[in-house]
């Protein structure tokens, strides 16, 4: 047996009681009268029905006070930036600048950030689904290396640049960009990127390596120091060895497997043909 309590129907057969009809009519008439009269509420809830004149006066007072306060410049102590090195730890190689301030992403308005995100996702399909993906140094460096291998160096540099803006604390991204610029023999780009890296990570442990590459690519550039000998790198050949900041794999198993796959696929096709 159902035990659901039921409400008593307010109206019989959908009709309100006669008293209610009269009361409603009277109520409506009273409301019309009240509307025609000037508003003078009898009962007021405390704090919810302020006096119009008093409220107006208070608002006027507040506005004046706010405007007056806005005209006076606050006396604040000057904030002096001690430089990035003040907060960096010499032992930290990768993240020389800890803290939320350094991790703050490229400062943009919300709309601009949305457009930037749309741009990044459309520009780098499969690499970044959002700006947050650019904070993954492993993912970004691998993608940049693949772009570089595909002779899309411009995309590689752009991706690393965007990632460095999004996560400036990720020094591997800066270093990978420097290495690709070095491999491209882009002297101006390398010097510019090295300056930026020096500014962002002033005491990074990899800086001597950057100097070594910089001296080879841009001899005479004061940022990299003086050339200390006829050859400033321990490597036979015109160019120094690179530090593999782009994380190219040493293991050639995947390359061998790729060749095997190619051979098997063509064998399956019956005749070796290549694309145009």
């Amino acid at each position, binding site marked *: 047996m159902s035990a659901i309590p039921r409400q008593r129907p307010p109206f019989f057969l959908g009709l309100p009681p006669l008293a209610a009809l009269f009361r409603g009519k009277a109520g409506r008439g009273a409301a019309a009268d009240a509307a025609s009269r000037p508003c003078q509420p009898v009962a007021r809830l405390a704090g919810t029905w302020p006096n119009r004149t008093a409220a107006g006066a208070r608002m006027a007072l507040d506005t004046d006070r706010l405007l007056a306060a806005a005209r006076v410049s606050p006396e604040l102590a000057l904030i002096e930036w001690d430089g990035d090195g003040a907060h960096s730890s010499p032992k930290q190689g990768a993240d020389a600048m800890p803290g939320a301030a350094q991790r703050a992403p490229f400062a*943009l*308005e919300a*709309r*601009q*950030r*949305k*457009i*930037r995100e*749309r*741009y990044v996702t*459309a*520009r780098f*399909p*499969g690499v970044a*689904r959002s700006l947050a993906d650019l904070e993954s140094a492993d993912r970004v460096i*691998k*993608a940049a290396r*693949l*772009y570089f*291998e*595909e002779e899309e160096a*411009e995309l590689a540099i*752009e991706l690393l*640049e*965007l990632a460095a*803006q999004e996560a400036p604390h990720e020094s591997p991204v800066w270093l990978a960009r420097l290495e690709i610029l070095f491999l491209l023999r882009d002297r101006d780009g390398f010097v510019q990127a090295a300056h930026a890296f020096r500014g962002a990570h002033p005491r990074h442990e990899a800086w001597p390596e950057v100097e070594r590459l910089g001296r080879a690519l841009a001899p005479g550039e004061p940022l990299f120091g003086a050339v200390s000998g006829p050859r400033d790198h321990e490597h036979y050949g015109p160019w120094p060895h690179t530090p593999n900041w782009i994380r190219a794999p040493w293991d050639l*198993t*995947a*390359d061998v*497997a*790729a*060749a*095997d*796959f*190619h*051979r*098997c*696929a*063509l*064998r*399956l*096709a019956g*005749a070796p*043909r*290549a*694309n*145009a």
Partner: protein
Amino acid sequence: MNPKSSVSLQFQRPDARAEFERARKETKTALTERVDEESATALLEIASLLDVGVARAKRELLASTLAWNEDNRALGAWIHQQHRAVAEMGLQAVEPLRGEPAHASLPRLVLLCLHHWTEALKWNACREREEYGALHALYMLAASGCFADRRIPWIVDGRGVTVTVEGLYLRALFLDRFASGTLTRAQEEILDAWLWQWSAMLKAERTYAGGTVLRAEPDGSAGLREGPREGEGPALYLRLEPLEAERRKVVRELQRGRIVPPHGLASELRIEEHIAVLDYLRRAFRTCGPETSGRAPRECQAGLRIEVWVGLAEILTRGVGVAVGVETGRWRTLQVDAATIEQHAQRRFVDAARRYLWMANSSATGFGFEALESDAAGIELGDLVGWRNAGDNALVLGQVIRRMPSATCGQVFIGVKTLTEAALPLPLSQDLTLDEQLATTYLFVPGDDDSGRRDAFLVPEKTFDLQPSFNARMAGEAFTLRFNRVRGRGRGWILAGFEIVPPQPEAPAPQPEEELELPTFELELDPVEIPVDEDTVAQAFERELPARLHT
């Protein structure tokens, strides 16, 4: 005469279009009778009205990603006709003033001709041989009148700008070269908006100073050409380095979350379209360089009729014979593969849905096709197309990179860049798939060297986004691969590079069946001692019965 007072600019409506045409024809009649200050002003006025009205109407046409319907096409064709007619009226008005280059109305009339010639080009629905001679003559007239580089206020899309005759002349030739079928209308609109922004860079040099240039020959009848002029005669050189610098500025602005230009219709178009134009310009500027080898030689292939499949699904279904999708049998409601249904479908629908294109020419890098508009319906820039080679029956795949109206009315020319001439369907099964029978067939695109580094698969965009691992088994060897880079992309497809990854550790071998038998369990309860007195046991029945049973 003031046509503005009576013309509605709601060009989406046929009555407004008819009203404008009436006003334009009245202006033309007045211009035929005499060319004076009043008729020139009326022409400029009607041209301005056309510009404002089109600026309103094109938003609906270009900002939508939906395919055009018949009304849209009619409106586009009408816009082209009106711009062309206004440009011709401008030429008609300029003609009697050739003898007096210092005439006050001449600079604005020349600007009008150049502007509307270019607008007509943008809305072109039928390929015609462009009259470059008229363009060159207009520029020479401006040069002789010493107003080619004079800055003149002008109105474009309802906005006031300052332009020069030289800038509009180079804009016309630039758009003609770079936007003739290789960009969609929305992308053309973006490129044009950038050209307005870069107007300061659209300057002609009389001598070749090295670098990457495009040249115009004012005494000839051709458009922009690459490099310096070899023979005698005047030439104007447009340097591309400043334009490339401007292109890079656009990239930097997008990185900062700002669209270029920040206003107008171009700012409302999808970012993907902006990126497509940026990439296109990058490639185009690179190929204009002196070190490039130019286009591959073409070979005429007239008359070769080919059935072409469009899109990955159609290529797999019709070109490879693979059913797209997986039939699980769980919700089988109709036996669609019944023989009668299959025959019926083949007889009635399949043949009607086939597309036949005529191969016009071929080269080492691509193919050119002519097609009826009905056959080319739905084939757009970026689409993947495939066909079987007539010789060895190999599956050829290409990307549509050009689509433009053919010289013959009702026909379309389609330019296709070759992706491969030997695509190979390969079944790949995902790691997550429990049943190996549910492998999906993908198109393998072999690279041009034996190392396998250039190999790729054609996959749907969604498949690439998920980036799962796939297993392939060929010639007795098993491979595990993962897509890791985009080598090319188009509408709905990606040419995905891949890497061979170490195979996943195999699951432990199942135990022999006899060992899986459950041991026999025996339930055994511990004895519990409950102290019970004898009276309780004796009166137990009495206490269980209700009192009424005792009565």
